[in-house]
């Protein structure tokens, strides 16, 4: 286990100034602060992006009047939500009702702790990073479940039960996809997974394992859409059926926690996708020296964000195109289709890896 500094000069400086354990702690705190700040800003930006992209998918303009290009729109929303009356509906389970909004956002921030943003920008590199990711991302669902239970509202309860069933199912194929990557890279550390993809673009896991990689990527995108509760698999919210789903009774700041968690989650999920399949922070290389040199000029963190945003665009594209599935279709899709396919794919990948039938 190794905690990385924010970057070399600052990290080295801290290490030089303080005794070793303190330096590690200081470095960690700095990285946490930096990443948390960065991601919060990014999530707010994502809210804007979602509204803009959605608008342009629908032949309209989206927010234009608050700040340049409506960029300040989510900030206005955030301030307003913070200043809203905080109410407690009658009959709610106090502890559950107030604890629930904190869990999803905690879970999604915890995932970011192991996310390699750049060569040296990572809070902590756990050897069992993938296991950790799977474990902490379960916190989000816990929040939704107890929130729906605690709200004393049938719609909320229905929504949370739906999301319980949905998330536990889709977790399976998601984990199987991750397992495939762990198998291919020979490590469960996210940093190692990225570094295992060094080389050209063809060394990314999406391409390197013929068919299996692409299939795993598709499965990952579908399952993570379900995990994120985003359309077309947003059954726990399902506005047209359950008015607001699990967050029907939430207002003001508690609602904003759910709202923000959705976007931080999306960011984390896309980050995992980029890490597993698209070479994470590695600059794309095409085997053409001048081009590769030019592309490598940009720091890794920029490449990481470019990949993340490409995946986020894909999520948005799904959401604004497809209608919602029904709960029983959703579950049978997972159990009758995605899960067998994931297993078969895992087998295929195992074969490919064993016999080294990979792209050079």
């Amino acid at each position, binding site marked *: 286990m190794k905690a990385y500094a924010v970057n070399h000069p600052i990290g080295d400086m801290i290490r030089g100034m303080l005794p070793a354990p303190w330096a590690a702690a200081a470095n960690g705190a700095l990285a946490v602060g930096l990443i948390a700040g960065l991601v919060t800003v990014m999530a707010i930006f994502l809210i804007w992006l979602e509204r803009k*992209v959605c608008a*342009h*998918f*629908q*032949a*309209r*303009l989206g927010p*234009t009047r608050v700040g340049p290009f409506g960029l300040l729109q989510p900030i206005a929303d955030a301030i307003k939500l913070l200043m809203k009356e905080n109410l407690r509906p009658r009959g709610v389970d106090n502890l559950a009702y107030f604890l629930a909004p904190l869990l999803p956002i905690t879970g999604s921030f915890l995932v970011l702790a192991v996310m390699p943003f750049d060569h040296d920008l990572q809070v902590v590199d756990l050897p069992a990073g993938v296991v950790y990711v799977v474990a902490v991302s379960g916190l989000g669902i816990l929040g939704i479940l107890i929130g729906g239970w605690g709200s004393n509202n049938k719609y909320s309860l229905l929504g949370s039960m739906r999301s319980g069933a949905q998330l536990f199912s889709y977790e399976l194929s998601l984990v199987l996809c991750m397992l495939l990557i762990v198998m291919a890279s020979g490590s469960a550390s996210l940093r190692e997974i990225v570094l295992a993809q060094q080389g050209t673009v063809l060394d990314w896991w999406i391409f390197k394992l013929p068919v299996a990689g692409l299939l795993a990527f598709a499965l990952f995108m579908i399952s993570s859409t379900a995990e994120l509760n985003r359309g077309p698999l947003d059954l726990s919210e399902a506005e047209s059926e359950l008015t607001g789903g699990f967050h029907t009774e939430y207002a003001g700041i508690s609602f904003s926690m759910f709202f923000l968690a959705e976007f931080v989650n999306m960011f984390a999920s896309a980050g995992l996708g980029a890490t597993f399949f698209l070479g994470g922070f590695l600059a794309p290389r095409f085997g053409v020296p001048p081009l590769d040199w030019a592309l490598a000029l940009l720091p890794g963190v920029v490449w990481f964000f470019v990949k993340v945003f490409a995946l986020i665009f894909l999520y948005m*594209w*799904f959401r*604004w*195109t*497809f209608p919602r599935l029904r709960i029983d279709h959703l579950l049978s899709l997972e159990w009758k289709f995605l899960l067998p396919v994931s297993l078969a794919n895992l087998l295929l990948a195992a074969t490919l890896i064993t016999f080294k039938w990979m792209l050079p």
Partner: protein
Amino acid sequence: MEGEMPQPAASAPDAGTPIMPGDGKPSLRRFLGDAVNMFKGMGVTFRYIRKPSRVVTREYPENRETLKFPERFRGQVIMPHDANGDHTCTACTLCEKACPNGSISILTTKNTASKRVLGAFVYRLSSCTLCNLCIEACPFDAIHMGAGFEMASYSREPLDLILNKKEGR
């Protein structure tokens, strides 16, 4: 289901057979066809985001300068006044009677010549349905439909208007 379905007339196009790739049974062909259809659907949305010219939004209030409503647009009842500030209302109350909502009150007065003339043409925009019946009823062309629409207010008071600027002749 009960009873047999009578066969529809021969001319009628059939809306009851689902459009689906393949022969209707689960098959690889149907699966692939569905996948292609999903991608085509994504293509439809993508065409919009690719071409900003397909954005149709009219930016009110930025476009106030160029905003144009059709000639017949019914926004509110207005009473045209000529250069002397005179109108052509004779207080015949036909519009008042034609109004289905009681939005018009014709209040009459006697002028110095002891003639019965219009004192106040009360028009309650607050209850007007802009149905055009008063305009059609008016034999003197005294009222028209105007295009004003920026009428939102903080209270109901400014919505109860008096249309005539001065008494009738």
